[in-house]
C-alpha cells in the first residue's frame, strides 16, 4: 500500500497503479479520454492533468498527467488547483475547436463521455472563432456508422481495435490535426469485435448502425440486466427498449466473464426479438395436412390443448438448450421425466454429458473467462474459439500479451505504460498452442498451430497428456512428425506456471473433450492443484440442459423419433427448439407427418413450427425472466426488458399456470429438483426484493414522455405496468442506487452519463462490481466431484476410406448460431453457402475453385459453392454449420461429392462477407 495526498486529504492506495486509475478508484472525478481501464495509459489527450508537488514545502508544483504518473508512496497532488483546472478546461477547448456542435442530432448525445468531460472540466464558453476541419466519412459495414468530424483523436479506437482485439483494418491515417481513424478505403470492418468501438469511442465517431436506424436516446430506453443468448459464454448485456421494440444491446460489465466487451454477434444479433414474422398470436392449423390453414385461436383453447396433450400417455415433450432452465424444468415437471427429452441429439447429449462429467473431476478446475486472461500458456484443442465462443478469443489475446507485462515488470516499466510495454516485448508472446480443424484467426499469435482431423486432434491430445505424465494412456503409431509436435507442445506446457486448456464440443468429438481432460489431469499433477480447463459448449443453456437430469436418464431426440416411428408416440410438444437443426430432415419430416398432434411453443417461426398444429407464441429473452448455465457452470438470471405483448407468454406459463405463482417459485422448485442446481436461486435476488419499498426501476429517472405518449387516447397517466415476476418494475419510479449487480439495468452515475460510469460501481478499476460478481457457479462444490480417472478411449488415426470424404464442422460467428442468424445485419455479414475442400481432394474429384458441388446428406440435397482450403486435412470436407441448412445431421456419414455441372454462382452484389479491401480499388 502507498500513502498519497490528494488536495490535502490522505489516502491509502494499492501500489503499482497510476494516479488516474487511483483517483477514479477512490471515487474522485478526474476527466480523461485516451486512458481506458483495459487499454492502459499513453498520455495522448493530456486531459487528466493534475498538479504534483515535490514535497511539503513545494507550493508551486508542476502539471503532470495523472495517467502517466505512478501513485507512488508520498505522492502529493491537487485536482482542484486552479492552474490544473484551467489547463483541463483548456484541453477541452482545444478538442472542441474541431468538434461539431451537433449534439442534438448525434446518436451519442446523452451518453457521451465527451459531453460529460466537458461539463466536468467547466469549459462553457468557446473563444475559437476559426474554421473547423472536415473529414469524409467511410462506409464501415452493416454494424457501425462513421462520423469522423466528431473525432477528438483520443486514439482509443485503434488501440482497442489493433492492440486489444487484434484487428488490422482500422488504422490511424494522416497527421497533425488531420489524423484520421478509419480504413484505407470504404469497407466492412473485419474484426468480429468491431461493435465495441461504439463503447470505446468517447464520442459519436463510431455509433451503432442498427440502433441509429431505430433510434432512441439512452435516457428514454427501458433496460434490464440480461445475458447474451448467442453462445454458451453468458456475457452480460444490457438491452434497451422503447415502444415495444428492442433498440440495441450494450455491454454490461462482469469482471469474471465479458469485462467491458462483447462480440458483434452478441451485440447486433437481437433482431429476432423485433421480427415482423414472429408468432405473436396463438395459431392453430385446422383440417387435414394437405389443406393446412392457420387461424388465430383463443389463448384459452391453446392452454386447453397443452394440458390435454400433457396428460396423454402417447405424448412426449422436447425441451431446448436455448431455453431457460425454468422453461425446461416446467416442461419436464409437467409431463414427467420419462416422457421429457431435453432436445438434444444422441451425439450432442453424449458430448454434453461427457463435458459435464469432466467438469466434476477433482483434478480439473473450471476457469472463468477472465481467468483465461491470466494464463501464461494456453492450449486449445479442437475449438475455433473466435467463431464458437468469440469473447474467449479476446481473453486469449490478452493472455498471450501478458508476457509483455511480465517483461516490462522485469525492466521496471509499470504494466499500465501501454506503449512502452508493447515496445519492449515486440512480437514476444506467451505461448498459445492450437490444434484445430483448419486455420483460425488466432493462428498469427500462436506459437504452435496444428490442423488435423478431429480423431487426430484427440490422439495428439492423448499423446500430450502421456508426454506430460507417463501414467496417462499412451498413443500408439504416432507419426514421427506428430511425435515431434507432441514433444514441442509438452516442453511448452512443462515450462508453464499457469497453464490453461480450452476444448469444446464444436467438433462433435467426445474423444477431443477427453483428451483435453487428460492433459488437464496430467498438468494438475505437476501443478499439484486442479488444472484449469474451459470447455466451449454450443448453446446458451447447453450445460443447463444436461444438468437438469441424471446423466444417461433422459432420452435423446432419436429415441423420440423411434417412438413416433413405432407408433408409441403420437403427440409431441416442442418448446423453443428447431428439430430440423438437429436431426436428419427427411426422417424428421416423415415422423412429424405421422404425428397426431404437434404443438410448438416458440418465439420464432422455425421449420418445426411450420409443421405444427398449434403454435403458441413464447417470450424471447427480452420479455421474460430465466436462468441460464454458461460454459463455466455459472447460473445467471436474465430479466424481461419490456412486457410481452399480444398472446406472448414465457413458455412455462403456457404449460401450467396454476403450478407456480411466479418464476421464483419455479426457480425454487427447479433448484430443489437436483443437487447441482441447488444454488441457482442465488443467481439474483428474488421478486420480493425491494429497494425502500419499491421495485427497481427499469427506466432511468430521466425517461421522457411517460405522460404524453398516450395523451391522444387518455390524458390521465396510466398505472405503470406491474411486474410480479421480478424485483424490477416497468417504471421510472424507485431508487436505482446501491443495487446488487444482478439487478442493475444500466450504468449511470451523476456526471457520468456514458458507459464510463461503470467505474463508479467497481470495487476498484477493473475489479469486481460492488456486491460481487453476479451469478453463482454450480460446479465448484465438493459434492459434485466424481472419481479422478484417466480417459483411455484413444481413437484410431484418421484414415481416408474410399472416395467419400469425412465431413467436419466449420463455424462462423455470423451464420452458425440459430437466433442471431435471423437478424438482418448479421445476415449481411454471413458468408454465402459453401463447403471447404482440400485442393488435393478437389483435384481428385475434378472440382475447381469456381465450381459447385452436389451431395446428399442428413436427408437433404445440397448444391453449393466450393472453397479450396489447403489448411484443412486432405480427406476431410469442411461443412459450415448453419449455412444453407448444414447441421449436425449433415455430418453423420462420409460424403460422396460430385461436381455440379449446372451450378452457377449466386447472382447479385456477390458475397457480402467479402470485404472491400479484397475487391480492391474497384469500389
Amino acid at each position, binding site marked *: 500500500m502507498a500513502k498519497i495526498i490528494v488536495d490535502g486529504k490522505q489516502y491509502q492506495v494499492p501500489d503499482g497503479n497510476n494516479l488516474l486509475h487511483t483517483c477514479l478508484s477512490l471515487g474522485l472525478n478526474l476527466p480523461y479520454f485516451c486512458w481506458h481501464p483495459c487499454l492502459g495509459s499513453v498520455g495522448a489527450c493530456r486531459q487528466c492533468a493534475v498538479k504534483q508537488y515535490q514535497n511539503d514545502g513545494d507550493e508551486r508544483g508542476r502539471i503532470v498527467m495523472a495517467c502517466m504518473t505512478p501513485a507512488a508512496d508520498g505522492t502529493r497532488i491537487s485536482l482542484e488547483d486552479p492552474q490544473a483546472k484551467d489547463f483541463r478546461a483548456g484541453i477541452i477547448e482545444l478538442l472542441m475547436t474541431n468538434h461539431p456542435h451537433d449534439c442534438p442530432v448525434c446518436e451519442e448525445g446523452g451518453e457521451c463521455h465527451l459531453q460529460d468531460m466537458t461539463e466536468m472540466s467547466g469549459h462553457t464558453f468557446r473563444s475559437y472563432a476559426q474554421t473547423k476541419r472536415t473529414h469524409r466519412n467511410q462506409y464501415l459495414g452493416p454494424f457501425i456508422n462513421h462520423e469522423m468530424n466528431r473525432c477528438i483523436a483520443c486514439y482509443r479506437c485503434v488501440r482497442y481495435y489493433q492492440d486489444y482485439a487484434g484487428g488490422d483494418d482500422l488504422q490511424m491515417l494522416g497527421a497533425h490535426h488531420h489524423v484520421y481513424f478509419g480504413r484505407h478505403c470504404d469497407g466492412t470492418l473485419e474484426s468480429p469485435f468491431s461493435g465495441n468501438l461504439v463503447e470505446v469511442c468517447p464520442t459519436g465517431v463510431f455509433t451503432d448502425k442498427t440502433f441509429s436506424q431505430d433510434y432512441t436516446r439512452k435516457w428514454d430506453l427501458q433496460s434490464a440486466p440480461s445475458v447474451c443468448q448467442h453462445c454458451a459464454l453468458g456475457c452480460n448485456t444490457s438491452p434497451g427498449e422503447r415502444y415495444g421494440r428492442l433498440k440495441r444491446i450494450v455491454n454490461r460489465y462482469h469482471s469474471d466473464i465479458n469485462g467491458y466487451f462483447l462480440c458483434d454477434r452478441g451485440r447486433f444479433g437481437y433482431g429476432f426479438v423485433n421480427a415482423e414474422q414472429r408468432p405473436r398470436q396463438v395459431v392453430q392449423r385446422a383440417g387435414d395436412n394437405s389443406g393446412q390453414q392457420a387461424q388465430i385461436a383463443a389463448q384459452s383453447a391453446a392452454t386447453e390443448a397443452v394440458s390435454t396433450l400433457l396428460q396423454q400417455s402417447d405424448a412426449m415433450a422436447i425441451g431446448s438448450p436455448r431455453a431457460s432452465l425454468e422453461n425446461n424444468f416446467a416442461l419436464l415437471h409437467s409431463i414427467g421425466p420419462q416422457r421429457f427429452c431435453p432436445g438434444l441429439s444422441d451425439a450432442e447429449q453424449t458430448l454434453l454429458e461427457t463435458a459435464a462429467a469432466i467438469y466434476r473431476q477433482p483434478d480439473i478446475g473450471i476457469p472463468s473467462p477472465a481467468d483465461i486472461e491470466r494464463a501464461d500458456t494456453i492450449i486449445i484443442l479442437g475449438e475455433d474459439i473466435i467463431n464458437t465462443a468469440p469473447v474467449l478469443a479476446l481473453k486469449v489475446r490478452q493472455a498471450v500479451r501478458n508476457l509483455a507485462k511480465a517483461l516490462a515488470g522485469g525492466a521496471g516499466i509499470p504494466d499500465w505504460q501501454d506503449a512502452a510495454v508493447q515496445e519492449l516485448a*515486440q512480437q514476444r508472446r506467451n505461448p498459445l498452442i492450437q490444434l484445430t480443424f483448419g486455420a483460425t484467426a488466432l493462428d498469427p499469435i500462436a506459437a504452435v498451430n496444428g490442423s488435423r482431423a478431429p480423431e487426430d486432434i484427440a490422439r495428439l491430445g492423448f499423446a500430450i497428456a502421456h508426454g506430460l505424465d507417463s501414467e496417462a494412456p499412451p498413443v500408439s503409431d504416432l507419426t514421427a512428425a506428430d511425435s515431434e509436435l507432441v514433444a514441442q507442445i509438452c516442453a511448452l506446457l512443462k515450462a508453464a506456471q499457469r497453464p490453461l486448456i480450452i476444448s469444446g464440443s464444436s467438433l462433435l468429438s467426445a474423444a477431443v473433450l477427453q483428451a483435453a481432460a487428460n492433459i488437464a489431469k496430467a498438468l494438475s499433477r505437476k501443478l499439484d492443484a486442479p488444472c484449469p480447463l474451459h470447455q466451449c459448449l454450443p448453446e446458451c443453456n447447453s450445460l443447463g440442459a444436461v444438468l437438469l437430469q441424471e446423466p444417461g436418464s433422459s432420452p435423446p431426440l432419436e429415441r423420440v423419433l423411434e417412438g413416433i416411428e413405432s407408433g408409441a408416440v403420437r403427440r409431441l410438444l416442442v418448446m423453443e427448439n428447431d428439430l430440423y437443426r438437429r436431426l436428419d430432415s427427411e426422417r424428421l419430416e416423415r415422423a412429424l407427418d405421422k404425428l397426431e398432434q404437434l404443438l410448438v411453443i416458440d418465439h420464432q417461426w422455425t421449420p418445426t413450427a411450420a409443421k405444427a398444429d398449434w403454435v403458441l407464441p413464447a417470450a424471447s429473452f427480452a420479455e421474460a425472466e430465466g436462468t441460464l448455465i454458461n460454459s463455466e457452470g455459472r447460473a445467471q438470471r436474465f430479466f424481461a426488458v419490456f412486457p410481452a405483448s399480444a398472446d406472448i407468454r414465457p413458455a412455462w406459463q403456457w404449460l401450467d399456470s396454476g403450478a407456480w405463482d411466479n418464476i421464483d417459485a419455479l426457480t425454487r422448485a427447479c433448484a430443489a429438483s437436483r443437487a447441482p442446481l441447488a444454488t441457482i436461486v442465488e443467481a439474483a435476488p428474488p421478486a420480493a426484493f425491494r429497494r425502500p419499498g419499491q421495485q427497481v426501476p427499469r427506466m432511468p429517472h430521466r425517461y421522457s414522455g411517460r405522460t404524453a405518449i398516450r395523451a391522444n387516447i387518455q390524458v390521465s397517466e396510466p398505472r405503470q405496468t406491474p411486474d410480479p415476476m421480478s424485483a424490477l418494475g416497468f417504471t421510472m419510479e424507485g431508487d436505482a442506487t446501491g443495487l446488487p449487480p444482478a439487478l442493475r439495468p444500466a450504468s449511470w452515475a451523476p456526471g457520468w452519463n456514458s458507459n464510463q460510469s461503470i467505474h463508479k460501481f467497481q470495487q476498484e478499476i477493473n475489479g469486481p462490481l460492488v456486491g460481487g460478481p453476479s451469478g453463482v457457479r454450480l460446479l465448484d462444490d465438493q459434492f459434485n466431484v466424481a472419481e479422478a480417472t484417466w480417459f483411455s478411449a484413444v481413437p484410431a488415426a484418421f484414415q481416408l476410406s474410399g472416395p467419400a470424404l469425412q465431413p467436419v464442422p466449420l463455424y462462423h460467428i455470423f451464420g452458425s448460431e440459430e437466433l442471431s442468424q435471423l437478424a438482418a445485419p448479421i445476415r449481411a455479414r454471413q458468408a454465402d453457402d459453401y463447403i471447404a475442400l482440400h485442393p488435393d481432394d478437389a483435384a481428385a474429384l475434378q472440382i475447381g475453385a469456381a465450381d459447385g458441388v452436389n451431395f446428399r446428406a442428413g436427408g437433404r440435397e445440397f448444391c453449393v459453392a466450393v472453397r479450396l482450403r489447403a489448411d484443412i486435412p486432405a480427406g476431410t470436407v469442411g461443412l459450415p454449420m448453419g449455412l444453407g441448412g448444414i447441421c449436425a445431421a449433415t455430418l453423420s456419414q462420409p460424403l460422396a461429392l460430385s461436381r455440379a455441372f449446372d451450378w452457377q454462382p449466386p447472382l447479385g452484389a456477390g458475397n457480402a462477407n467479402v470485404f472491400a479491401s479484397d475487391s480492391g480499388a474497384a469500389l
Partner: protein
Amino acid sequence: MTDRPLTQHIDLSRPPYDLAQYEDVGGYAGARKVITEMTPAQGLEILKDSGLRGRGGAGFPTGVKWSFVPMYNTPAPTKYIVANADEMEPGTFKDRLLMEGCPHLLVEGMIVGAYILQANIGYIFIRGEYIEAAQLLNEAIAECRKKGYLGERILGGDWSFELHVHTSAGRYICGEETALLNSLEGKRATPRAKPPFPQVSGLWGRPTIVNNVETLCNLPQIVLLGADWFKQLSLTDDAGTKLYGVSGRVNTPGCWELPMGTSARELIERHAGGMCDGYQLKTFLPGGGSTPLLLPEHLDTPMDYTHIGKLGSRLGTGTVIVIDDQVDFIGALKNLEHFFSQESCGFCTPCRDGLPWVEKALHNIECGSGSRADLDWLRRATWMLNMGNTFCAHAPGAMGPLDSALKFFPDEFERRLP
C-alpha cells in the same frame, strides 16, 4: 593536430575522399585505435572526459547518455546505434555538409561509437531529400564492408558490426529520437513516452543510442587525440568545435567549423560578411526554428549551450537565422508556426489542436483582421503548449520563438490589431 576535427578533410570543390584517400590522410586511425587498443569501458571514459555534448540541439552530455546503456557479457543480445541524420530543423544545413563533404567520417564515427557501446547494428536515419548524401554514405559503407571495417569480427577482434542507411519518408518529428525509432520500425513517427529511455528499450525494444551526425563525427578524433585536446578546442567550458551556420539577409550565408563559444557577432559580421546593404539586424534565432529569439544586444554572448541557455534561449543546432528589420515579422512568425503545425504528429491534444489555432491567430493578425482574443490565445498558447504539458518537445519548441516574440516585440502584435 588539427583544430578542425570535423571539416579538415572537407573541400566542396572536389569529390569527397574515397576510402583509400581517407586512409591516406589518417582516416580510420581512430577506429583502429579504439578497436585494437581500447576496451569499450576505456572508450566510454575518454568520451565522458571529453565533455562532448549532443549536437542535435538538446546538448545532453554524450558520455553520460551512453553510460546508461547496459553492457552485457557474451553472448550479447543485439544493441543498436543510430545516427540521426534527419536534418529538418528550419535553417539548419550542417549535417548535410558533413555527410556530403566526408561520408567516411560519419561511418568511422559510428564504428567508434558502436564499439564503445558494443552495438551490433547501426542505422543512419537520413532525411529523404539528402539523396546525394545517402548515396555517398552507401558507397562509403560498401567500401568499408569490403575492407573489413564493417562486418564480422572487425580488425580480427570478437566484435561484429553492420551498418545500414535508412532514408526517411520525411517528417520533421522523425528528428525526435523516439519518433525516429518508431519510424525506423515501420510505425507511425509518434514520439514515445520516457521513461523507458531508448538506452534501455529503444529500437525494437533493445538498448539503443541515437545521436546527431555531428556528435558522432567528433568521435574518431576524440579517441585518437584524447579528451584534453578536445576540450582545448573550445573558447568556453563546453568542449570541442561547433558547426555554425548563418542564413537570412547576410552577404555570405554559410556553415563553418569554429571553436565552441564563438559569438554571434563574429559569425554574422566576420564569417557571414555582415548584413546585406540596407538591412539592419532586428533579431535572430540562435540555433534553428525552434529556438527562442535573441536580440542585437545578445550578439556578443558566446554561442555555447550554457551561455545561450542563460539568456532563455537554446543553442539548438547552432545555425543562426537572421531576421532583419524589413521582413514582415508577424508573417515570418506565422510561416514558422505553419511549419510546426503541419509537422505535428497529431498525437497529443495541445500540439495537434493548439498549433493550428496559433497559426490561424497569427494569420488573422497578419491580415489585419486579428482581435484581442487572438492575441489572448497566443499568450495562453505559450503556457498551454509548454514543456511538460505536451507529450514531447515539438510544441514547446514551436512556442520558443512565439513566446520570445511576444516578450521582445509586443508592439508588433498590438500594431497589427484593427
